[in-house]
């Protein structure tokens, strides 16, 4: 097969000693970047981009440069899970869903298992995505072209519907929480009319509420406040720290093959569309919760609840590079920076890149395989080390976490206002927990609300007010129907039972 040959050549390019070294450097840098909340993969890559500028001018240098930068990206994808699990602070937006079950696991003293499951699933998600890129790229690359505003809206609708009701408890509280999220997402510039809204004349509000600041406050600070109340004890202190936990978790993982495959499929789809890694992780967590036998126990510390979002996030993050290479459309903020990098190095992402620069493209694809293997090795060997962090007394680690959170919030826009905002969100997060309001729907609405709104309004604008645009072709109609089906599933099931019972 043609692809295999091209890929082997790609491995030839990627396996030079320099490139291997860059791979490990990139992965380790990426993990550090992923761990620090607020810094984020996109910023990390952007900071290093100018360094690669002179690197790209040596022969074969563009490949080395993209290997370094994309490995930072893989590293950040791995790293985001670490703080989510250990401290309930998502380092990256797509790690939010990992906290739902990952952090309870850590509290039960199973941080090692949660980390191993997260890293392994990440790897599997990425592997499935890169295999798809290797063999199916010509087929799936064109798929993204079919996505206009109505299609994008239906994808977001599907994410919301897959997620509603997942909090289990009070449906009214879930809806209330989600609506607060939508309201927060609406603050700032209205991108459809180009005017400001809900800023009340405060210039600090014109950039809107950044997702990362809200998450750092709601989850990180909220968690610390709650722990303070419960007597300064870190529940995960009994964590065992040796490598055995990795092997034990591996024995458990094959049980969740269905969740893995489903999540990888969701992730690949969302990456190619490109919808992004964050909705992919939420959607596959929601689906896993509904479809798994243990669905009702999700949120109390199920390994499967870590597997689903991590597989999807990594699959989406990896496959997001495909629309970037073939169409020049970035599927994630980090891919957007990488895209800028390609242009700066004099490469033109687009349909012809595969034909004109096969060395570069296949070198990059080969580095996706190798970079993820490198990443897995690095993070797995560090599992006991990460888990051991939980043994540090809370009175020492809590101030450190608060400082890191504050730095993270500051870094997002270099603004002190955001640090105060983080504290406010922390108090809100604490209040939500005490009052039994779920945080997840609010976060989801905050991160996807404005994109969903924008695509909805553009779709309606394009159809001149005709709502049937959401059923105007098989693709958008199918997605919308699936979303509605998921939303009304409990009603439909109940209705079905009534019908069956009567007949």
């Amino acid at each position: 097969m043609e692809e295999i040959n091209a890929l082997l050549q790609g491995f030839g390019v990627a396996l030079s000693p320099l490139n291997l070294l860059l791979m490990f450097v990139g992965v380790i840098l990426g993990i550090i970047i992923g761990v620090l909340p607020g810094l984020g993969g996109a910023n990390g890559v952007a900071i290093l981009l100018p360094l690669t500028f002179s690197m790209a001018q040596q022969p074969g240098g563009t490949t080395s440069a993209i290997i370094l930068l994309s490995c930072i990206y893989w590293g950040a994808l791995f790293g985001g899970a670490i703080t989510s699990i250990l401290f309930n602070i998502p380092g990256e937006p797509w790690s939010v869903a990992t906290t739902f079950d990952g952090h309870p696991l850590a509290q039960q003293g199973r941080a090692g298992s949660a980390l191993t499951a997260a890293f392994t699933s990440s790897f599997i998600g990425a592997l499935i995505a890169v295999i798809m890129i290797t063999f199916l790229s010509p087929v799936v690359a064109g798929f993204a072209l079919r996505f206009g505003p109505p299609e994008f809206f239906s994808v977001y609708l599907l994410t919301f519907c897959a997620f509603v009701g997942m909090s289990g408890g009070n449906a009214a509280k879930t809806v209330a929480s989600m609506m607060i999220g939508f309201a927060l997402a609406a603050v700032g510039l209205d991108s459809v009319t180009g005017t400001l809204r809900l800023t009340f004349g405060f210039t600090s509000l014109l950039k809107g509420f950044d997702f990362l600041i809200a998450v750092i406050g709601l989850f990180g600070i909220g968690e610390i406040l709650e722990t303070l109340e419960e007597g300064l004890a870190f529940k995960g202190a009994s964590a065992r720290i040796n490598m055995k936990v990795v092997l034990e978790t591996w024995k458990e993982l094959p049980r969740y093959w269905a969740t893995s495959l489903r999540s990888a499929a969701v992730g690949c789809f969302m990456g190619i569309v490109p919808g992004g890694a964050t909705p992919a992780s939420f959607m596959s967590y929601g689906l896993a919760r509904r479809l798994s036998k243990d669905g009702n126990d999700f949120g109390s510390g199920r390994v499967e609840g870590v597997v689903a979002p991590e597989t999807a996030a990594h699959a989406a993050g990896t496959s997001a590079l495909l629309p970037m290479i073939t169409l020049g459309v970035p599927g994630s903020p980090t891919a957007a920076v990488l895209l800028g990098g390609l242009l700066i190095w004099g490469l033109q992402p687009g349909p012809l890149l595969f034909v004109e620069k096969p060395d570069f493209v296949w070198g990059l694809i080969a580095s996706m395989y190798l970079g993820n293997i490198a990443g897995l090795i690095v993070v797995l060997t560090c599992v006991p080390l990460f888990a051991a962090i939980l043994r540090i007394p809370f009175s020492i680690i809590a101030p450190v976490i608060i400082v890191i959170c504050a730095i993270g919030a500051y870094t997002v826009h270099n603004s002190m206002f955001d640090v105060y905002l983080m504290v406010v969100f922390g108090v809100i997060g604490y209040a939500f927990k005490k009052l039994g309001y779920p945080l997840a729907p609010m976060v989801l609405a905050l991160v996807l609300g404005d994109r969903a709104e924008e695509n909805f309004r553009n779709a309606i604008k394009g159809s001149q007010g005709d709502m049937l645009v959401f059923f105007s072709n098989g693709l958008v109609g199918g997605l919308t129907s699936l979303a509605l089906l998921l939303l009304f599933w409990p009603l439909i099931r109940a209705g079905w039972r009534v019908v069956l019972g009567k007949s």
Partner: protein
Amino acid sequence: MRNFTNRPWCKTAALALFAAAAVPVQAFAAWEPTKTVEFVVPAGTGGGADQMARIIQGIIAKNKLMKEPMVVVNKAGGAGAEGFLDVKESKGDPHKLIITLSNLFTTPLATNTPFNWRDLTPVQMMALDNFVLWVNSETPYKTTKEYIAAVKAGGGKFKMGGTGSKQEDQIITVAIEKQTGAKFIYISYRGGGEVAVQLVGKHVDSTVNNPIEAVAQWRAGSLRPLCVFDAKRMPYKAKITKTMSWYDIPTCKDTGLDVEYLMLRGIFMPGGVTEEQKQYYVDLLKKVRETPDWKSFLEQGAFNQTTLAGKEYEAWVAREEARHIMLMKEAGFLAK
């Protein structure tokens, strides 16, 4: 002044002064950054302004044109208002630069955010970005005339895709409407690359993408350029597709569509900086513009290579501001 020469340190100082006067004045007076220079981009990562800022940063680092490092910071909030307000508030800070796009004019006009280019110090115009009218190559429209006629006959169902709202792409769209009487539905997206792909996927009927945003799709045969919104053709004669170069695209005016628009890619500093500080950056950017890397970047993006500094640059910006006020007033885009 008394006892001036009696103190030993004063003697040294006087000597030093004397020595300094002996070397060329410029070297003595020249200001240089003493800490990291922050380069603000009032737009998101990966866009045209961001790319240009990062390539400038890359060229400076690679050729060691500045002793202190330079960092690029994106402050995209509120259509760039976040970045402009930040620079406005840094009055007198010589360690801050900002690269502008047309939102220097459009954002304060459309949102009433309190800033104006007069709050900043114009340093250097690096280039002007071109706009090209694109259609999908599978459509039958070979010329601007045919396309505009079809839009008119279509009765307001044709969609124009563009980046942002009440910004350059929509201003051009409204200008086309005023000029020809054709009506478009304007659909706003987040970035130029996305807009080009939406045109390939036929979710919109035309775009006014910058050359660099659409070139890959043009070369792949998916898009067709109809005309460029500049007074003269783009000067780049190297073939981009099998048959065409940038130079082969006619100007819109020649094809009967009398609309001209170019976007500023210029560098500003905060207000209240000294003349020497400004001159330092003018000289620095001159060195950047002389590098082959910069030249190939301009060619790649088919930029209009006009560069201005000093009074001429200020006059140009003032003229453009007046033009934007007029264009946006006509379009009904001014904030109430």
